[in-house]
């Protein structure tokens, strides 16, 4: 097997993807009453809700009465010192964001819609406070713009969580909602991140603390130290992959037994991805393509064993960075450690997939070796009080009465597609319950399904190689991969679907729906598709 030199370093997208959405400038004044600039044809207003959260409203002169309330995604609640790879230099910001980006906002305004969004009172996992903020914000908007007849909610990532919660809890305020690349409940979400982080720690650097961070400044320093260690481990693996993709060396920080190091480190990366639920398709690695310069016999090996490891390497940066930042944040809120894998059976976790990825895991013996490390390693134990507190945070019931539109990428490494699937599953259960109740009451009519579940699937093949056979990671991320990697066409299709649902009390369906999706591109409606269930189901 030949060695590969990267055209350029693997892009470590990591946690910036969570925070890097465009922020829209708008007048922000710490006042409950909006302060508007009175400009024509679009008026921008700013102010702050009673919790101090700044908001932005933008309304065109030809306002048609429908406003889009946007909830932004996760922004770390602590600054990240310069020098830390990828995230370094991040400052906490509560700049309000009334839409996914300026282009989409402009398009909505041009159609006569209003847009509104908050920057929220605190960053980090803020769902409970953000829900209250948004409810107040809707009231302020309606008061300011009395022509308002419909409010639709949409949001991405954590904003998707907030949007779903708004739809469940406030059907009186909203006529339709679209959670996108959504997070589901914080417990399962952090189990995924915690497993990824614990896996990185176990295989590659046992000095990664991985949780149980101290209070105050000491805990902050520990978390930042973990970020450095995680990225250092990723960087070491990246260099090792570049030097020898078939049998990349283990990072110097790894303390796994020498016998285990006979298994290529790439297989450990794949194991971490599988045990946590991180997809094995990433921005640039499709798990289906090999360099054409390789002999045919080696191409199959590359597809089965090497490409998935590259995907794991590219994706795990995200999951582990979220693991550190969100773990620190939520532990501070919960008052202690909440990630607990003392009872986790990682062999069972990967049982369904180990055959599918047998080559990437270095066969049955490689799998057994890696599982033996996981079984023998000290586990993370939660503080019961912190777990109890976490359970008091808002979670999704799936019980929604207004039309909702769910949309996510099936290879999202941060909020895995299983997050969306869990909400779809809960809704299906709810609908079944309603149908049972209706039949008992003598009604022959099945309750209408008002949840439209859409998927963004990656292409079959998209990894590109140089003439020399090196993977090219300089290209834009493939559709269907990475976190909230949507096109403006897709955003606007969702917006159109929301407008229809809001106006008609039901989702668009049939041919018009399929035409809309086809025109937007890479949006799949398939009621038979079910995303891989999240790993932590039933635990």
């Amino acid at each position, binding site marked *: 097997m030949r060695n590969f030199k990267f055209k350029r370093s693997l892009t470590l997208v990591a946690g910036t993807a969570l925070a890097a959405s465009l922020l829209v400038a708008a007048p922000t004044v710490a006042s409950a009453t909006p302060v508007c600039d009175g400009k024509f044809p679009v008026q921008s207003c700013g102010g702050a809700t009673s919790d101090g959260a700044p908001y932005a409203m933008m309304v065109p002169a030809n306002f048609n009465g429908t406003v889009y309330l946007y909830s932004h995604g996760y922004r770390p609640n602590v600054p990240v010192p310069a020098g830390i790879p990828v995230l370094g230099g991040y400052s906490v910001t509560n700049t309000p964001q009334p839409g996914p980006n300026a282009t989409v906002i402009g398009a909505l305004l041009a159609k006569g819609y209003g847009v509104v969004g908050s920057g929220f009172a605190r960053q980090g996992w803020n769902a409970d406070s953000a829900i209250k903020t948004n409810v107040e914000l809707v009231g302020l908007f309606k008061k300011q713009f009395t022509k308002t007849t419909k409010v639709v909610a949409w949001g991405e990532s954590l904003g998707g969580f907030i949007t779903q919660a708004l739809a469940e809890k406030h059907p009186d305020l909203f006529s339709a909602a679209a959670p996108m690349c959504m997070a589901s409940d914080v417990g399962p979400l952090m189990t995924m991140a915690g497993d990824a982080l614990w896996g990185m720690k176990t295989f590659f650097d046992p000095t990664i603390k991985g949780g149980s961070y101290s209070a105050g400044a000491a805990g902050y320093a520990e978390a930042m130290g973990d970020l450095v260690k995680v990225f250092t481990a990723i960087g070491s693996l990246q260099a090792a992959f570049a030097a020898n993709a078939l049998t990349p060396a283990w990072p110097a920080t790894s303390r796994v037994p020498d016998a285990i190091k006979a298994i290529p480190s790439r297989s450990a990366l794949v194991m971490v991805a599988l045990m946590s639920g991180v997809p094995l398709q990433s921005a640039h690695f499709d798990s289906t393509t090999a360099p054409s310069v390789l002999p045919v016999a080696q191409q199959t090996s590359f597809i089965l064993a090497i490409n998935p490891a590259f995907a794991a390497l590219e994706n795990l940066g995200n999951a582990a960075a979220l693991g550190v930042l969100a773990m620190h944040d939520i532990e501070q809120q919960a008052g202690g450690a909440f990630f607990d894998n003392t009872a986790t059976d990682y062999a069972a976790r990967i049982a369904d997939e180990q055959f599918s990825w047998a080559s990437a895991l270095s066969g049955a013996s490689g799998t057994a070796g890696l599982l033996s490390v996981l079984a023998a390693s000290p586990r993370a134990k939660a503080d019961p009080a912190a777990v109890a507190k976490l359970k008091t945070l808002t979670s999704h019931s799936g019980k929604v009465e207004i039309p909702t539109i769910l949309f996510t990428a099936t290879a999202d490494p941060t909020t895995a597609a299983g997050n969306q699937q869990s909400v779809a599953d809960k809704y299906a259960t709810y609908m079944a319950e309603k149908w049972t109740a209706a039949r008992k009451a003598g009604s022959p009519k099945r309750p209408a399904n008002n949840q439209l579940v859409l998927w963004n699937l990656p292409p*079959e093949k998209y990894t590109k190689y140089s003439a020399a056979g090196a993977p090219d990671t300089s290209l834009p991320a493939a559709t269907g991969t990475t976190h909230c990697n949507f096109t403006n066409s897709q955003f606007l299709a969702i917006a159109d679907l929301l407008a229809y649902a809001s106006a008609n009390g039901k989702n668009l369906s049939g041919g018009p729906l399929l035409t809309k999706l086809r025109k937007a591109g890479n949006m799949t409606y398939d009621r038979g598709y*079910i995303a891989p269930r999240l790993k932590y189901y039933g635990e």
Partner: protein
Amino acid sequence: MIRKTRVKGTWLAATVLAVGSLFATSLPAYAETGVTGSEIKLGITLPLTGAASPGYNKIGNAMNAYFKYVNDNGGVYGRKVTLIQKNDEYSPQLSISKTNELILKDKVFALVGPLGTANFTSVHKSVGIARRGVPSLFLNTGFSGFGNKKTYPTSFMVLPSYAMEAKIIAQFLKENHAGKKLGIVYQNDEFGIDGMGAFKAAGIKFDVSVSYTSGSQSAATAQTWVSQLAAGGAQVVVFFGVTSATAPLLAVAAGAKYAPQWILGSVGADPLTLRALGVPLAVLNGAQTPAGNPSPNDTSDEYVKQFQEINTKYNTGTAFDDYVLQGMNIGLMTVQALRAAGPNPTRKGLIRAMETKGSTFASVAYSPLGFSRTSNVGHTGYYMAVMDANGDRKPFGGKVTLYTTNSGTGPVTVSTFKRPAMPAKGLPSNS
């Protein structure tokens, strides 16, 4: 006048009834995915290119050839059968997207002969084969896990399981190679593990055990296998892997003058493919192998003879080997399944037909079929054969001694089962 009216009324009523019954019989056919009044559309995923493709890439064309033959002879209840082949390059990830394509875009009625254990495991879970109720007939894999009817309610095996095969080889080793140093080379995944578990349960201990990871097979890796086997003094070597691994193993061993008694598992023992991969046929001389079907060269066999004729006419230029035989046979079984599902087939009806009538289907393989309402197990046995210098194989001991067993703890027994006759002209007329 009155009489006239009555006649007219009767005639009218008869016309209405006739039209009504026409709709009654036609509508379900048009209502089922992949079935029209003139066509039944089927799909298969398999490696058509890449290291794992040799041999396997012939199966789809062989199936197609058989379907064309049937179509030229009236089709299945008047409908022609078409098969869409998708190249998954042996990649499970690609199998998923290709199967999605078959189901969602091509809208096939059923999958037939999907190939590869890891591939179908991935497809079944990710595509939701059972949830969607898509019949998946005659899987080209012997992983015994697929025999779990609860997990795979719409899927049906065709090959005897790897566990069955290992149990039968184990019996053969005890009866014919007792006291010799045993070696094994196996694929280090569910394929090999399935077999290794059965060997262990049968009390076979290998003195030298070599595993390889699927996709890693090459002349270079085969050097290490042969070194280990030779160093361990293995006198009898069982190979439990794919043909693309058999080839470098045998070629390297021949080059190193290492000549144990080879026992080649059924998956990796097709002589023509091995020869195409550079293995001199002389190296195969004397190799022993479990076989489910007669030799593809045995023209005294009515199935082989018929299939060879079809191959000559409808698969022109393709050498007739085990893979072609297997593809044709899957075609034959598929047509019987479609016929058993009735003139207006539905997916549910096809599955029911497999469960209730599948065990009676004509098939080239010598062993019984295990299909029932509680079992999706296909063929259940092998006979042992010996290869000669021409790349042909003959029954060990001069006559077919069929061993049957199950994937569990059941005994290996000599069977007197007599397979059903080939349908006249190779065209099923079952219902």
